[in-house]
């Protein structure tokens, strides 16, 4: 059969529809197994397509035979392809981790897996679609699944977190919808390539209004300060793997949308400074608030917000190397923060309270998990020889090329704060005294497998970054090279096969 980007969307939707029936009539386990198969399939798609675009360039797939700009089309460029593959891989690892996840009892696990699959699907759709309204729809799919996953546990304060998320999230949807509307009145098209082509026709005051609406709308999804009030609660209350999914998948989609709007739809240079300052403020506020947290997952949440600020800032620097660095940061943040959330949720699960102080001495009882957490902590603060160092180096040297000394200083000062609170956790893990009366639930095999896979990736990329860099290079060129995007979307008339 023909491999095409559509399968990313179509297969999971079909599966999501079939799973309840299958699990009802054939076997209950199917509800948990099928999503894994779907993720495997999408990984397979990603590999094949990445190999294809190696020689064919950008793949633009048209849905239902309507040519762009009339029909909806999916664009698989090196940039979006990279993100899509990353998302599907992370999605698969999260599924593996939560296959027999500790607290999910049977009939709930069905919902859990369907929702998680749909969330990943929505994120992939955001990344792949070439139609602005379609992007909005996918974003809503992601958002709604995310709301319900945030409030998945009844005994936690999930409902509260979920409601806050929903409140802010619906503001995002309203603003984006408004922006799309104004855009449509001006240009009469929804195809992103065509918008990019014609965006100079819009009167500037309206243009800036549209940009502001988009920035605020997507900024909410991208956890930009002060739009990120929902984020810490959502991260800390959702199930552990879902926290990983937020960090690795959902936020990435938001950042993608933001970047796509700024870089491709309208390239207005003021927006770069906006990204730099917004990112910087986000980073500072988030990291400094993380310093005093006593709850592990909440601390991780703040740190992840800070990382996203770092990513935005890196995009804002705008040079090619900076964008490579930003993508590298996104990659690192996806794998490292997923590892941290996965191992961290086991640690908190085995401690009586979720407090950091309650983790003391778990290093002896859960040695492997603790070592993985330590690797993640060392990597996220950017200590060599772990992967976090290289992305930091890329971004910093890109900033140095532009002689932004103050920016570099600030970033590093903030990283010192980061070091403080991560090392506090690590030293508590290994050198605190342990309380004997807690009994340990060993993590399940498949959870260990997925965590170890992430840890090995971190080490390998850290020791030998070349395994990833050329991918990133292509992605960065694909992002900045606007003309090729437009031309390859608008002037192809047959679906690749």
């Amino acid at each position, binding site marked *: 059969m023909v491999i095409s980007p559509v399968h990313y969307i179509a297969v999971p939707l079909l599966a999501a529809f079939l799973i309840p029936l299958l699990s009802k009539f054939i076997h209950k386990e199917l509800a948990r197994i099928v999503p894994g198969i779907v993720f495997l399939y999408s990984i397979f798609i990603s590999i094949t397509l990445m190999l294809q675009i190696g020689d064919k360039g950008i793949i633009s797939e048209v849905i239902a035979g309507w040519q762009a700009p009339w029909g909806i089309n999916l664009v698989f460029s090196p940039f979006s392809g990279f993100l899509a593959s990353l998302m599907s891989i992370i999605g698969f690892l999260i599924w593996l981790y939560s296959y027999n996840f500790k607290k999910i009892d049977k009939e709930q696990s069905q919902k859990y897996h369907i929702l998680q699959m749909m969330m990943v699907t929505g994120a992939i759709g955001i990344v792949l679609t070439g139609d602005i309204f379609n992007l909005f*729809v996918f974003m809503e799919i992601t958002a709604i699944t995310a709301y319900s996953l945030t409030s998945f546990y009844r005994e936690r304060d999930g409902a509260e977190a979920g409601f806050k998320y929903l409140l802010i999230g619906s503001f995002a949807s309203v603003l984006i*919808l408004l922006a799309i509307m104004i855009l449509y009145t001006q240009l009469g098209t929804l195809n992103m390539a065509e918008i990019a082509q014609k965006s100079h026709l819009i009167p500037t005051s309206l243009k800036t209004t549209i940009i502001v609406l988009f920035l605020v709308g997507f900024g909410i999804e991208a956890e930009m300060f002060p739009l990120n009030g929902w984020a810490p609660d959502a991260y800390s209350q959702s199930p552990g793997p879902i926290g990983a999914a937020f960090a690795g998948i959902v936020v990435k989609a938001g950042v993608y949308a933001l970047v796509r709007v700024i870089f491709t739809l309208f390239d207005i240079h003021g927006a770069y400074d906006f990204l730099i300052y917004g990112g910087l403020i986000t980073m500072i506020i988030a990291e400094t608030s993380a310093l005093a947290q006593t709850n592990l997952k909440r601390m991780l949440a703040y740190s992840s917000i800070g990382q996203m600020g770092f990513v935005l800032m890196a995009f804002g620097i705008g040079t090619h190397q900076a964008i490579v660095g930003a993508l590298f940061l996104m990659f690192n943040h996806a794998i490292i923060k997923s590892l941290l959330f996965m191992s961290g949720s086991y640690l908190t699960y085995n401690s009586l309270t979720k407090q950091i102080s309650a983790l003391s001495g778990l290093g002896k009882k859960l040695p492997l998990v603790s070592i993985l957490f330590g690797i993640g902590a060392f990597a996220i603060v950017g200590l060599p020889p772990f992967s976090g160092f290289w992305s930091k180096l890329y971004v910093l040297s890109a900033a140095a090329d532009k002689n932004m000394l103050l920016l570099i200083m600030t970033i590093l000062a903030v990283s010192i704060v980061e070091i403080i609170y991560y090392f506090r956790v690590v030293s508590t893990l290994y050198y605190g005294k342990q309380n004997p009366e807690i009994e340990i639930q060993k993590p399940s095999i498949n959870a260990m497998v997925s965590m170890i896979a992430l840890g090995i990736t971190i080490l390998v990329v850290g020791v030998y970054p070349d395994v990833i860099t050329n991918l990133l290079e292509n992605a960065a060129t694909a992002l900045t090279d606007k003309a090729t995007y437009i031309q390859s979307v608008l002037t192809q008339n047959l679906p690749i096969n």
Partner: protein
Amino acid sequence: MYNLELQNNLITTSVYGSAIALILIGLYAVLVKKNLIKIVIGLSIIDAGIHLLFVAIGYIKGFTAPIFSPGSENLANKMVDPVPQALVLTAIVIGFATTAVALSLVIRLYKHHNTARIDQIKSLKW
């Protein structure tokens, strides 16, 4: 002729005005009211305003609905723009789903905190 023009303007302005008014009312409800239910209602009012605005943009005076029925093939250039309506349909569905999730969350919150005032549900902060 003249009052047709006037009528035209009247319709459009009233439609736009009511849309804006809806949005502002919803915003007021969301930002000021403390009751969760009222906040959810405010959200859906905002949605309604947006949808109305969108449809109003697509509407052109005197044109017919974009349906190709036998005998109306020649009206192709006398039809209103179909795209906004399609989009609005989608948006309505999405809004519906969001409202459903929101209400279920409200029920859970009420059971959990047995209050529906948003400023008393602050167990997660800082």
